[in-house]
């Protein structure tokens, strides 16, 4: 056999095995969580807040953490979108291609992208102490917003940089100001916005370190922005730290719920994306 055919075969085997390894990890994780978490899952888990002694095997559920996580994800996604869409629009429509400001801004967002969430948490915590604030839902939302903004901006920017010049020209030619092109730009980058949102929701709901200092942890459902809020990852963490095997299993149930929420949001997001990107040219 000629060498290049052998080369082809080897490369193919390598590619397949790499894919299998990744897939095996995913299956393994889901299997482990299912095996330990599913039997412990019951209606009380998702409909009740922890009763007394929950972390030592008492009754109740983790509704506090589910609601807390959803609040934080919702709040930070909305805030993040409100802040990052204008940034992306400015970078791509107002600034010229080789603008220094755009270069510096993109570099800054890349750096922010790489900062671990515990650093954001510590940073926000020091500010909160300075302002005399307690751990609160509002603080948690703010720190997660900081965390997701670079994700939003970088992934939307990636799509917006490929905005056809002709499209902007066509809009200007109709007599549009730069601001008036936003309707066209948003529709064109809609798939990018959706992908960015899915990525940030995943990161926001799974983050434990950032909210540990800022949102705190509580057994009750937060009733206002100034009350502390529980989150699913921290709920998993606290239950998993228990020496009690039954409580550890509940941690897996909580992880299962977390994964389920992410799955629902992802699939829902994909469907919405398809709907919005039908106009893309």
């Amino acid at each position, binding site marked *: 056999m000629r060498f290049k055919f052998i080369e082809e075969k080897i490369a193919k085997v390598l590619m397949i095995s790499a894919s299998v390894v990744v897939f095996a990890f995913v299956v393994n994780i889901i299997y482990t969580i299912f095996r330990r978490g599913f039997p412990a899952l019951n209606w009380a888990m998702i409909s009740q807040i922890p009763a007394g002694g929950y972390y030592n095997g008492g009754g109740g559920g983790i509704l506090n953490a589910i609601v807390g996580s959803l609040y934080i994800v919702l709040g930070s996604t909305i805030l993040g979108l409100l802040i990052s869409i204008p940034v992306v629009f400015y970078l791509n429509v107002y600034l010229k291609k080789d603008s220094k400001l755009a270069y510096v801004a993109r570099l800054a967002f890349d750096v922010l992208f790489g900062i671990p969430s515990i650093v954001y948490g510590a940073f926000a915590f020091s500010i909160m102490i300075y302002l005399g604030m307690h751990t609160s839902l509002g603080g948690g939302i703010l720190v997660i917003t900081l965390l997701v903004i670079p994700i939003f901006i970088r992934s939307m920017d990636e799509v917006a940089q490929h905005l056809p010049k002709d499209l902007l020209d066509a809009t200007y030619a*109709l*007599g549009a100001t730069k601001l008036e092109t936003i309707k*066209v730009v948003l529709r064109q980058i809609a798939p990018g916005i959706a992908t960015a949102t899915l990525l940030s929701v995943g990161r926001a709901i799974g983050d434990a370190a950032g909210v540990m200092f800022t949102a705190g942890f509580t057994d009750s459902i937060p009733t206002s922005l100034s009350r502390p809020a529980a989150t699913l990852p921290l709920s998993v963490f606290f239950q998993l730290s228990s020496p009690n095997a039954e409580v550890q299993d509940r941690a897996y149930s909580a992880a299962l719920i977390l994964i389920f929420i992410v799955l629902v949001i992802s699939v829902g997001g994909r469907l919405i994306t398809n709907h919005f990107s039908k*106009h893309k040219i």
Partner: protein
Amino acid sequence: MKSFLYRNPTRTSWAEDFSFLNKSSKDKSDNEIDNKESLRIKKSYLKVSDLNLYINKTHILKNVNLEIPDKKITCIIGPSGCGKSTLLKTFNRLIDDTEGVKYEGSIWVDDTDIFDKKTEITDIRKKMGLLSQRPCPLPMSIFDNIAFGCKMHGERNRKKLNQIVEEQLKAVGLWEEVKDRLNTPASKLSIGQQQRLCLARGLAVEPEFILADEATSALDPISSKHIEELFVELKQDYAIILVTHTLRQALRIADHVIFMYLGEVIEAGPADEIFNNPKQELTRKYLEGAFS
């Protein structure tokens, strides 16, 4: 070579085209009629004087002086890189977005200098419908593509919008093809239909000029013929400025021709004069196909 050249039998003299410019020479009664007429059919006017354009210190357009006749098709011809498209983009100041661009001189559109600081750039652009090389529909439905411009300029009345959309789609011969699917994405149309949609979109904001930058070069021959026929039809109401790479196209539809070479206007004049009797050696060589 003369035998196959296209002649426009309805051509009026060159001086007549610009008779509206020297109203002062006419007597008063004549002038009144002229005014009444101008209320009915607005004359559009575009004049470039001493235009020099630099991009990053490269001299792109050199001392350009021209006038564009109204209600005629003006073709700008010339070899690649001679500044045809740049000139066209300067007319509606889309060139402003290019990095390092600098211009001198003036371009008069009706009674405003488009480079004047007081001139609203959007007003200028509204007067110039643009048709780009590749059709570029907006990422919206067919209906919204045409209504977008009108909505932007303040038209909110749904009935009026419906009427405008129908009218403009009919003007470009697209109505029968799309009337049952006005809410489908414009990107679903064929490329030729898209180009006609783009033309209709431009017409909906009531421009005076139509700028077309090689608007047929990306299309198949039939769609391309369709667009050409539309131009001939539309010249009754608009001044059409067409940058073209295909000499044949210019021969077929041009009333007025501008020949550019290396950023300079070498020769400009009525089509049959340029094609049959070019005054400049360079024009003659280009028309004979010595270079392109």
